[in-house]
């Protein structure tokens, strides 16, 4: 028995040593590398988003390094897992900022984890760029002042609500809407609120579900009896897929609007392609784009990870390039200089659009509203910020 354990320990040690060695291999000498921190939800509840983003970050770093690095310096990436836990995000951010002494941090994916990391980066004065923390309050403190070290690449929730309301009135000519959201999620609450404020037509009904439900027939029956033009479902694809399936099977034929949380292949798998028609959702990036950079990104991602990239990976990919541009403009790798450059960043050209940061560290960019018919992305409409 002892021998077996010894053997297993030895195997584990070798494995770990191998992992360690591969990290070291990429390093150059001290001083001619730029340290970049990456912290994502690699395990836990939201690991689907976190893993997609972490993959794209490492891919972007490899590309930059293969292309000669930033000002001739290679980027050295330090990656941590936040376990989808807020305290772990605070701990990882502190480790990156104080022990690993990185120039900037990419991640985490969710708004909650990003908020948890803010006290750490503020104390250490290291800039943090979150690809997909879309909650409005992420970059602002309680009194409405901007958080000095936090940036995001995805547009904020309120902008999605505005874009969808504008789109529903304009392109869909909707006069009335029903909202079916998850009232335990800040994401859904924020989206419903801005949608209601900006939609000039009538909100006929507002119904709720909870995140772990899978049978929506009761609430959909109530909705079927209402007279409305468009159904707005502020939620994630796990529920939205099932809602779409059950709504279409029940005979609810109105167009369904959704936020960026719809943007995952699983939505179509859950709903069945024949049911996914007349679906419109805001996207940070469109897979059907003709831009060569986007095509290149999709191809490389597929080759490297044998999976379809989604907008989360696209945002994470852009986040790395945002930091690259800031590093180049700063001409210095100190966190303070990078932060200054991020503050003034303008006309960044990425695969999720061309944007600059506004005074609240939000990207000023247009939203893409993707139309799906029979499970296929057929059209993408741009809605610009006012």
């Amino acid at each position: 028995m002892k021998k077996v354990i010894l053997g297993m320990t030895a195997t584990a040690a070798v494995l770990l040593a191998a992992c360690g060695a591969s990290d070291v291999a990429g390093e150059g000498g001290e001083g001619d590398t730029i340290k970049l921190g990456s912290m994502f939800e690699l395990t836990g509840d939201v690991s689907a988003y976190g893993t997609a983003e972490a993959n794209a970050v490492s891919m972007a770093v490899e590309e930059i390094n293969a292309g000669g690095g930033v000002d001739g310096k290679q980027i050295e990436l330090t990656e941590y897992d936040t376990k989808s836990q807020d305290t772990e995000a605070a701990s990882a951010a502190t480790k990156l900022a104080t022990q690993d002494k990185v120039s900037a941090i990419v991640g985490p994916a969710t708004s909650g984890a990003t908020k948890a990391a803010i006290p750490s980066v503020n104390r250490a004065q290291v800039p943090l760029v979150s690809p997909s923390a879309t909650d409005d309050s992420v970059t602002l403190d309680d009194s409405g002042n901007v958080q000095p070290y936090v940036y995001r690449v995805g547009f904020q929730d309120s902008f999605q609500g505005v874009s969808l309301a504008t789109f529903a009135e304009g392109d869909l000519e909707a006069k009335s809407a029903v909202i079916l959201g998850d009232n335990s999620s800040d994401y859904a609450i924020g989206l419903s609120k801005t949608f209601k404020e900006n939609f000039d037509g009538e909100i006929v009904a507002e119904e709720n579900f909870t995140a772990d439900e899978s049978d929506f027939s009761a609430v959909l029956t109530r909705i079927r009896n209402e007279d409305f033009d468009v159904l707005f479902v502020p939620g994630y694809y796990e529920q939205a897929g099932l809602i779409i399936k059950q709504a279409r099977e029940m005979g609810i034929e109105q167009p369904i609007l959704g936020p960026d949380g719809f943007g995952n292949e699983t939505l179509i798998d859950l709903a069945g392609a024949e049911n996914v028609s007349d679906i419109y959702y805001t996207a940070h990036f469109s897979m059907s784009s003709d831009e060569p950079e986007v095509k290149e990104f999709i191809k490389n991602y597929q080759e490297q990870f044998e999976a379809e990239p989604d907008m989360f990976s696209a945002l994470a990919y852009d986040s790395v390039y945002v930091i690259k541009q800031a590093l180049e403009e700063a001409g210095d790798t100190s966190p303070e200089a990078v932060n200054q450059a991020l503050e003034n960043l303008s006309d960044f050209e990425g695969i999720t659009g061309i944007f600059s940061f506004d005074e609240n560290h939000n990207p000023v960019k247009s939203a893409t509203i993707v139309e799906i018919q029979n499970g296929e992305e057929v059209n993408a409409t741009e809605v610009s910020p006012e």
Partner: protein
Amino acid sequence: MRMLNKTNIGWLALFLLVFALIQGAVLVGWIDAFYEIALVTILINVILAVGLNLIIGYSGQFSLGHAGFMAIGAYAAGIVTKQIPNYGGLLVGMLSGMVIAGLVALIVGIPTLRLKGDYLAIATLGVAEIIRVAILNMGGLTNGAAGLSGIPYLSTWFIAFLAAVFVIILIANYTRSSVGRATISVREDDIAAESLGINTTRYKTVAFVLGAVTASLAGSLHATYFSVISPDQFTFMRSIDILIIVVFGGIGSLTGSVIAAAVLGVLNVFLQPFGSLRMILYALALIFIMIFKPSGLLGTKELQLSKWFNRKKKQTQRQPVKQKEAAR
């Protein structure tokens, strides 16, 4: 019994020694901002695990509701310190959290502690979920699912250390008091205990309330150290994390809970560079310990300075100790 006997001085010296070691490491710079987070997490887990061990290990009641009571403390401290951002506010927040958690535990405990085993576990699980959903729906006060952020950074590792020492002394003394012995008798055999005139529900309730109050204290520390709280942090999985520490250290051993919280905390820190591999290694470590030490690290053994001192005394009094040991 005098307060200042050899045993108590021994304990005091032990706590001071641990304190001096940590303080020294902080001054030298071995414990930097990152290790401080790990340290505070360990101290918070010590408080939670010792409190839960009182419920599970000493009164023998299986509770899965610890995260709920922790949430009460976290939100009480969060809401109060956002209004009064100083140590007075922290104290008010902590105390109000403890009172509310105690009351909730009392109201819930009286009917549910008549249940046994699995039923109680389900009931307490339900209570924790009710607390979480209530917080989720309290609107502006708790800020719903987004939770509270920007809570003033008031707790230091020193405050967490004091709180942990306080809780350990409180619970350790409780289990050694007559009430504590009655509580243990309920664990051993509740029918026998009842036949001796012990009001089993009462002792179970007291242990449950005490555990809830300490969990609330830990929650307050958590909120004012990490500055961000949301209902997501206090789900069922948080209760399981604490349960793991208790089982890992040994059900019924407070020393075990303290050691387990420290070991798991350190393990978590050292596995951090391995990314997603960490959770697998962490799980493997747990499985190995449970296979080779099914009763946990320490079983029901405790670190008892009194025993240690008394043994020394006996050795000096009676020389032929070895004979006695050989006879055993």
